[in-house]
């Protein structure tokens, strides 16, 4: 299935990517998607390492890593927010 991924702020800069579309086998959770990204090594493994402080959203809602993904989902990965 196709997952659209967005990166924001410091994470976007660290990874050098603002967005991409990834084809991953269904079924899959956000945790599995993160594993796939970490598999790229380098900054990907480091910035997305387990225990690093980042947030996840699925279809524009904050959600935990065990959230199940569906084809066409928009996933966003970003640092803790600092607006206001």
């Amino acid at each position, binding site marked *: 299935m196709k997952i659209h991924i967005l990166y924001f*702020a410091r994470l976007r800069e660290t990874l050098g990517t603002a967005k991409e579309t990834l084809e991953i086998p269904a079924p899959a959770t956000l945790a599995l998607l993160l594993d796939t990204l970490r598999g790229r090594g380098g900054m990907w493994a480091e910035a997305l390492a387990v225990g690093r402080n980042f947030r996840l959203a699925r279809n*524009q809602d904050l959600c935990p890593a065990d959230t199940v993904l569906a084809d066409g989902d928009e996933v966003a990965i970003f*640092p*803790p927010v*600092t607006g206001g």
Partner: protein
Amino acid sequence: MTIKIAVQAAPFDLGAEIAALHRDTPAVGAVASFLGTVRNEAGTVSEMCLEHYPGMTEKALAEIVQNAQTRWALHSVTVIHRIGPLAPCDPIVMVAVASAHRDAAFAACAFIMDFLKTQAPFWKQETTADGAHWVDAKDSDTGACARWAAPDL
């Protein structure tokens, strides 16, 4: 309830926004509001740039306002958050809440700010003489949300 939510680069007119919440509205007796501005106590910040997640920002703000509405009897709420480059002292965000009485207006305004600070996808980047750097999230902001979890408020 009337809700206005805007995410924009342009400045806002806080006085006009507050006036719109009570003018010709006899049910309103109280408007609590908050204005957040670009702070620069050390005098080192030359610019502050706000990045956001288009689409999710509006959605997150609408959910926060709806959650406030379930807790307090509110007449109207306006939330405006600016994005893009700002200068020190520039307004960043405004929240204004109109209600019959001040306790609901104050509480809802503080509630919306607390959740905006931790759940709405905005990120601040400061520029100083050293270059641009991302502002770190504050633990105190996460803590501020916890107080609203108490069953009896």
